[in-house]
């Protein structure tokens, strides 16, 4: 169990140069509550952050004289609710009045200048809460102590005699009280305390409460300014096309006519592989770009197709070349040879696009002295590095102003291609802000795609139907080899490929199989892969959970019982599985024509399970009636937001299952927009019953885990309904009519 955490506080860590919050950037970072006329969002109205000029108690907390508490949030808000959760954690220790809390983003440039006082800005891997809970709570606790000290010094009483609640400090013996807003300026002058003690989780008042999000109001009336909406004085707009074949180059373009089209300022080369039209409005830029004759040097990759990629992966199922081991227990070959029955199956999982609702975009202003970028990003620091790289300026002369994202899903974390492009264009217009917005077509065809893999699974059963051997051979693309080669293991293995199959840790397998071998034959086509909400657990959970279902049926056993037998050493995974089975009524028949399927995983440190109820009519039409989902994230900071994430995860995961596929022709992605890369709609969305069951003692992620159980639970239910085992996705082209 978590004990009270006592921290030593280094002075360096919390000491700031002045007592006023200044220098967070001459630009702005948030559009949440800053003045915004109905005539749009001009930067001149946004020149200051809410905290400007107010006392900064420490890096996390600024308090205005009217007791408004400004909590600094380093991670990005992209819908997942982290902004509110992080604010809850600071406020819990700060003991402030929650109704007076607002938030702001510090800039990554300031983080660098202040020795990374805000820690990591990276918002991925379901890390927002679990990766920073200790230091943000500590930030709140330190600020509280300083505020108390300031009041105690004014009253000349011992700090230990002062009490705080809801931003009010009270000294009962003398009957005096004051508020945070009145002592914040004095507190800001103090050195931080040498030690702070964090609350025991049982004493939490705000953490664990289903409080409302802090960022809703402006999302209801159009006031929320996203990157795509930004307008700066004198700004020009850019539309871009990059070579459709990944790795290809821009050969030439002919701007004789296009350059004279209405509103067009210039047609410019962007890096090696792209061309952009810069115009007064984006619509003018896009219209001109569509009319621009462009020649591409497509290179050798133009010969690649989905069929050639499939052949490459097929070969990896049996090859011994570039094969890495992710988990090995016992002796699979020996056990398989001794098995009474073996079962074998091959699954395929396609490329998929993140398809954020807001297409990629960034606004940049470049001069010889400074480069500034305004953009939606999951990682402000990475965006800053991209800006610096593209600008040719020292990083200390660059900064990034973060804007809430219109969806991230992993696309805007490790990749800032759109930032580099915006800066490359802005360099050709010194002093002028340039807003680069990708068309949906550009976004669909220039993603960093969910990687493609195949998987061959072989299972061995003994005469009692117990699973004695399991061999999993994944063949396909490594994300790390392309994106983070320095994260590969010493032998070259990409351990993230084995999410859900690891022997232990955040992505450990939830079953004990006495003889187990999990391998990855790394096969890397030219299509750029990326971290896609959930990453490799999405397909690995399909492989494992659907194949376990196959094994259960081969053994003549109930899929729940079959799993339970393998889960004695995995009590927390077993608990979520049992919960969904109980709530769904697994032991009793479902309604007429309705069939159930199960799935369970441990991933991103959390344990999640789902039971899906589906029917398939005579024409093969699938209806998903209900899903019961359980999540044990250790601690649940905001249960209603966890419910929202769980529900949303089914939309993302089931959209992928039903429709998600990017195919390759002549080296390029064929899908261009939502008409040929559809997403699930309201009428396909089942009822979801979410059970949040935090068991304490660990911190698991929320934004990604549930996606992994969405597809296998539904697929196992489809099998129950039809007798059909679907092993190729998406389902849109699959005949689901019952066999026989």
């Amino acid at each position, binding site marked *: 169990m978590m004990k009270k955490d006592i921290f030593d506080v280094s002075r360096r860590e919390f000491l700031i140069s002045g007592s006023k919050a200044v220098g967070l950037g001459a630009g702005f970072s948030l559009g949440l509550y800053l003045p915004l006329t*109905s*005539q*749009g*969002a001009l930067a001149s109205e946004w020149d200051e952050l809410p905290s400007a000029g107010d006392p900064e108690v420490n890096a996390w907390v600024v308090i205005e004289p009217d007791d408004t508490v400004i909590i600094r949030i380093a991670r990005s808000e*992209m*819908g*997942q*609710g982290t902004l509110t959760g992080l604010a809850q954690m600071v406020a819990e220790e700060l003991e402030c009045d929650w109704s007076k809390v607002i938030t702001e983003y510090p800039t990554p440039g300031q983080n660098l200048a202040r020795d990374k006082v805000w820690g990591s800005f990276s918002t991925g891997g379901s890390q927002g809460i679990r990766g920073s809970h200790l230091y943000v709570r500590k930030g709140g606790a330190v600020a509280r102590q300083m505020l108390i000290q300031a009041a105690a010094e004014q009253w000349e009483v011992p700090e230990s005699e002062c009490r705080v609640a809801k931003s009010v400090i009270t000294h009962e013996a003398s009957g005096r009280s004051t508020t945070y807003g009145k002592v914040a300026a004095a507190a800001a002058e103090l050195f931080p305390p040498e030690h702070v003690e964090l609350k025991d989780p049982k004493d939490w008042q705000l953490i664990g409460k289903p409080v*409302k*999000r802090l*960022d*809703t*109001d402006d*999302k*209801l*009336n*159009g*006031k*929320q*300014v*996203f990157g*795509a*909406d930004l*307008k700066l004085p004198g700004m020009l707009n850019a539309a871009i096309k990059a070579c459709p074949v990944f790795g290809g180059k821009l050969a030439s373009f002919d701007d004789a006519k296009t350059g004279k089209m*209405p509103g067009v300022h210039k047609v410019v080369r962007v890096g090696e592989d792209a061309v952009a039209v810069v115009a007064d*409005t*984006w*619509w003018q830029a896009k219209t001109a770009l569509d009319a621009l004759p462009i020649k591409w040097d497509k290179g050798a990759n133009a010969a690649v197709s989905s069929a050639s990629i499939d052949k490459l992966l097929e070969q990896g199922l049996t090859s011994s070349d570039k094969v890495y081991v992710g988990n090995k227990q016992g002796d699979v070959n020996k056990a398989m040879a001794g098995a009474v029955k073996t079962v074998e199956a091959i699954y395929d999982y396609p490329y998929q696009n993140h*398809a*954020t*609702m*807001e*297409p990629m975009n960034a606004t940049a202003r470049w001069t010889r002295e400074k480069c500034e970028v305004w953009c939606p990003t999951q990682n402000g620091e990475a965006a800053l590095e991209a800006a610096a790289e593209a600008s040719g300026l020292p990083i200390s002369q660059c900064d990034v102003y973060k804007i*809430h*994202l*219109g*969806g*991230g*899903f992993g696309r805007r974390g490790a990749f800032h291609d759109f930032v580099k492009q915006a800066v490359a264009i802005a360099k050709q217009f010194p002093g002028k802000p340039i807003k680069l*917005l990708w*068309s*949906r077509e550009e976004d669909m065809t220039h993603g960093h795609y969910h990687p493609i893999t195949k998987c061959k699974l072989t299972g061995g059963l003994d005469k009692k139907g117990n699973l004695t051997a399991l061999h999993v051979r994944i063949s396909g693309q490594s994300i790390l080899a392309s994106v983070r080669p320095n994260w590969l293991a010493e032998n070259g293995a990409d351990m993230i490929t084995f999410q859900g199959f690891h022997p232990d840790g955040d992505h450990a397998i939830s079953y004990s199989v006495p003889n187990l071998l999990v391998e990855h034959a790394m096969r890397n086509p030219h299509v750029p892969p990326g971290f896609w909400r959930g990453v490799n657990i999405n397909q690995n959970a399909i492989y494992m959970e659907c194949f376990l279902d196959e094994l259960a049926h081969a053994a003549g056993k109930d899929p729940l019982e079959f799993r339970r037998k393998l889960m004695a050493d995995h009590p927390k995974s077993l608990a979520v599985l049992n919960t969904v089975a109980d709530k769904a009524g697994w032991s009793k028949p479902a309604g007429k024509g309705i069939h159930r399927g199960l799935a369970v995983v441990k991933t991103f440190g959390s344990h999640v399970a789902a039971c899906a109820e589906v029917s398939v009519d005579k024409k093969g039409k699938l209806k998903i009636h209900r899903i019961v989902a359980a999540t044990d994230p250790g601690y649940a900071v905001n249960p*209603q937001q966890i419910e*929202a994430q769980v*529900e*949303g*995860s*089914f*939309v*993302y995961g089931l*959209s992928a299952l039903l429709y998600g596929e990017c195919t390759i022709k002549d080296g390029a992605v064929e899908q261009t*927009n*939502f*008409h040929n890369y559809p*997403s699930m*709609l*309201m*009428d396909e*969305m089942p009822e*979801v019953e979410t059970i949040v069951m935090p068991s304490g003692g660990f911190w698991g992620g929320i934004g990604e885990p549930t996606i992994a159980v969405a597809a296998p639970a539904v697929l196992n239910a489809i099998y129950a309904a039809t007798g059909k085992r679907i092993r190729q996705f998406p389902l849109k082209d699959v005949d689901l009519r019952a066999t026989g």
Partner: protein
Amino acid sequence: MAKLKINGKLVEIDVDGSTPLLWVLREHLDLTGTKYSCGIGTCGACTVHVDGQAVRSCIVPVSSLDSSREIVTIEALSTDNNHPLQQAWKELDVPQCGYCQPGMIMAAAVLLNNNPEPTDEDIDGNITNICRCGTFNRVRRGIHLAARINKSSNKRGGA
């Protein structure tokens, strides 16, 4: 030159007639609550009201409109975030990233005008906006709640 009536105001905009209404709203009138996402009328993020009907503004050239048509955008749905749908959305914390929500709310507002007490089936049939965050179930509950808010305020108003 396009002459339009937007949020009750007559405006004249010097723009090519083929320009979609979406881009006139966003780039000429700074009404950026109406979002660009697909540009082909598929996702609904650009939904506005034209004469009380939900219209996907990314595929409507301004040349097809004139000042006799009443165009309403999310910015003018209410004066103070107090439309029943906005109240319900707030109560249920419907938005996640929020990018699709203006379109979602505008589509829902037309549904409620035409059908004050829609069933789940009515909602499923009428709200065909894409939301990648996956807010559908809260959207559905939000529409039902807005219908109840409407009903109770109508009762009070009528009494």
